[in-house]
């Protein structure tokens, strides 16, 4: 379970006249195992910020974010690194990789980093590439040369390759055609059926319906 408790978050922009932007005041919600929560609200309201706070990329001003009975807000850097490795998958909006590394290696990396053997990681990655409908002639190329939709699927593969209890998804179905969108939706469903707590941003009504999400409307949540 993910619990977000009484969270305040603001940004102070020192180099822009110390402007202070308050994003959340007293934000509360939770995500149960097997549940898919969709964050809803106009752009700029802080949907991605919530994912980043849970992942530990953003520091919160007040409150607690509890994952695995641990409060992200009070963990040290290496404790967060460990928690990420063992528990939290994060699919960002855009793929960030070093040039020259092949799609296959990009996907295998999280498994190899957790000590999985190469053969096993290879098999799992190949299966996922096939499931995701990525053409075989692309597997050994750097994803930086791929189309937006292909990059997005590699990004998802990298985030989904491990069996982790928590998944954070930042617009996983954006920039995909309907066929590939359905593939991703089914992968997300499969994770959910296995008890994974999922919190995501889904820009389209179709995905939200198909995934049977519980919506959290940030327009309401942030107006206290």
């Amino acid at each position, binding site marked *: 379970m993910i619990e977000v408790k009484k969270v305040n978050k603001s940004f102070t922009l020192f180099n822009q006249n110390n402007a202070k932007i308050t994003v959340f005041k007293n934000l509360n919600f939770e995500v149960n195992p097997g549940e898919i929560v969709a964050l809803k609200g106009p752009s700029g309201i802080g949907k991605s910020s919530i994912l980043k706070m849970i992942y530990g*990329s953003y520091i919160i001003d007040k409150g607690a974010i509890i994952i695995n009975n641990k409060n992200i807000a009070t963990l040290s*850097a*290496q404790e967060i690194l460990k928690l990420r490795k063992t528990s939290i998958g994060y699919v960002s909006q855009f793929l*960030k990789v070093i040039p*020259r590394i092949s799609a296959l290696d990009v996907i295998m*990396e999280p498994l*190899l980093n957790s000590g999985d053997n190469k053969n096993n990681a290879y098999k799992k990655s190949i299966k996922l590439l096939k499931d995701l409908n990525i053409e075989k002639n692309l597997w050994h190329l750097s994803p930086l040369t791929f189309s937006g939709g292909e990059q997005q699927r590699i990004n998802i593969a990298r985030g989904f390759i491990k069996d982790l209890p928590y998944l954070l998804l930042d617009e996983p179905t954006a920039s995909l055609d309907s066929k590939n969108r359905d593939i991703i939706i089914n992968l997300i469903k499969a994770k959910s059926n296995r008890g994974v707590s999922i919190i995501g941003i889904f820009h389209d009504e179709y995905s939200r319906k198909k995934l049977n999400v519980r919506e959290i409307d940030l327009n309401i949540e942030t107006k206290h």
Partner: protein
Amino acid sequence: MIIPLLKVTNLSKSYDNIVGCKNISMSLYPGEVLGIVGESGSGKTTLINCLSGNLEPDRGKIIFNINNKETDFLNISESEKRKFIRTDLAFVHQNPRDGLRLNVSAGGNIGEKLMSVGYRHYGNIRSLATKWMNKVEIDKSRIDDLPITFSGGMLQRLQIAKNLITSPNVIFMDEPTGGLDVSVQARVLDLIRSLVNELNLTVIIVSHDLAVIRLLADKMIVMKNGTVIESGLSDQVLEDPQQEYTQLLVSSVLHV
């Protein structure tokens, strides 16, 4: 509870009246990559020179804990220190010419390093050297060539091979991609990253290039005027910097 591989407490070093670094405290755990950023003169190089034994700090503590053996780096004899530096630490210089002997063959450069930690069998040394040339993507037919015939990128890769071949426990890198042109930079970065993953290396890397830090480092510290002004997970420091100077640094990066 995991014990840090390296624990630094209140480390200070000045040059006469000029502060090099002041009251630095930090921990590094096995398999972590720590990035150090900051403007020229902020004390980055002074810090890693102190940690790697190239400089004697004025005050502070440096404790290495390797395979449950604690080494109080600033309180051991000079000979113990030399041995520790030789076997447990490695230093990759920005300019590979500082870390290589240019009038000794590529294989000789690597072989020397092996001999320094006790390898004696010529055949073993040569086969290990060949294996590492291959690992850093230098054609093995170049093993008897002098480094002066190598390009900048090849020299840097040779320096990396020379440093990693003895499986050191902590690797220091001072702007390892600094002097290389962009396409070569990507290749060296990629190489460092795959070696870090494959061999589970513990690395301290100094760079003024935030993109390099983002791609390689798990944690980072930001230095200014000899002190650490901000530290944390790399993605956190880069995406949600808490200090004015760090915000300036991050917002000054040009995006292509």
